[in-house]
């Protein structure tokens, strides 16, 4: 189905189950011992952690191409509920350990940022990116 059509029919949802998000991005959970039935309110895609800290609200999913310890720390500080690493990036064991300790599910997807964000947005997940003029969308 053309993306445009789906965007026109887009119905924003109040939350999306993390399990549903994992299906949309065709992701694999890297620390299955952490609960993955969370309800995610919105999404944010960024490679710069200060951008994440600037815009993200609690209970979000973070999509990122960056793969290091500071991503997990950023998620911890900003109450990000789950992290999706894009383009098949595999976090180091220390990252998985820290995330598990903090109860943050880590998900790895083979897909890229543009496609994953697009799919989640079209499925109705709210954007947590504030535009610089202060408005949403």
């Amino acid at each position, binding site marked *: 189905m053309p993306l445009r059509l789906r965007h026109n029919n887009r119905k924003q949802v109040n939350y999306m189950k993390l399990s549903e998000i994992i299906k949309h991005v065709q992701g694999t959970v890297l*620390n*299955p*011992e*952490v609960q993955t039935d969370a309800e995610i309110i919105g999404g944010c895609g960024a*490679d*710069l*952690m*200060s*951008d994440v*800290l*600037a815009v993200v*609200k*609690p*209970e979000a999913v973070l999509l*990122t191409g*960056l793969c*290091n*310890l*500071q*991503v997990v*720390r*950023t998620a*911890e*500080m*900003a*109450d990000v509920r789950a992290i999706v690493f894009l383009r098949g990036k595999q976090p180091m064991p220390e990252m998985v*350990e820290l995330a*598990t*300790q903090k109860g943050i599910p880590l998900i790895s997807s083979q897909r890229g940022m543009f496609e994953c964000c697009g799919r989640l947005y079209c499925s109705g997940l709210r954007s947590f990116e504030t535009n*610089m003029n202060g408005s949403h969308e």
Partner: protein
Amino acid sequence: MSSTLQETQGRKGRPITDNDAQDITRIEELSYDLRIFEVMSREVFTLAPNQTIRDGLELLRIKRISGAPVVENGDLVGVISTEDLMRALTQNDLKSPIRTYMSANVISVKSYEPVVKALETFARTNVGRLPVTNEHDQLVGMITKGDITRGVLVAIRKDYQEEEIRRYRVRHLFEDITSDRTSLILRYHIKPRDFINGGQASSHIKRAMLRLGASAQLARQCGIAVYEAEMNLIIHTTNGGILRVQIEPHRILMQTTDDGPGIPDVNKALQPGWSTAPQEARNMGFGAGMGLVNIKSCVDKMEIFSGAGKGTRLMMEIHLRPEEKFSAAEGTEEPGI
């Protein structure tokens, strides 16, 4: 064999998480910490060797037990189990003395031994209940696997209550201490270029705030502000610096201090997107030029004192709303959005 599998695979074949590991060690610890006399049943129903099999059957039936120690002159001389009695029954030998059918080879444990000793004995011998004797070999109790489970549960519940009390005390810290001005100061030394541990201090600060009873939103605001400030120390300073948080009932003061190299133009540093971060920091996802901007949006007041070739002092302050004040009574916590 099965225990090695458990060590590597955890319960239900999942890898062991920190949480599981904690549980397992606590129960393991308890099985060494707890002594048999702490969990055993002291009420023991005994038989004498010259009592009849019929007496034995009556005792087991009335007390709903599956075996009893046999005692003569205070000494443990044997045990009689349901199986022993069944053997007598098939021989239609109800009048014989207990002595004829009891096992004289008694396996017992000492009251002062750790619970793990009883567990090992259960596993090795396949018996369901063990007589417990004291240092003079006198019978003082009986222990079953059920007694151990109960004992461990009671001990865990006690642990849990102690933890609850500790949390309660921390939360009411400011209420319990009377002074004209009470403050709690947390201080962290931050090393330059230590990207691996970057954020650890902020993590501790956020956790401390939550333990003190701060709302999720307040803890998050503080967390983000000190995290950006901590990363600034790691990325920019020559010798690292000090991150200091002063928690008072009505406000939070956060401050970083370092001895250089200083910010030549503070106004420029405050512009969104302006950054002097080196490639190393950018590779870690920092250097977007949003650090100070982010801090400003999380705090009520921010001040920077710096200059080229001087140290930098960054001061941040959050005023607590009346309902967020630490001296406030319970029930002020709210989920932050």
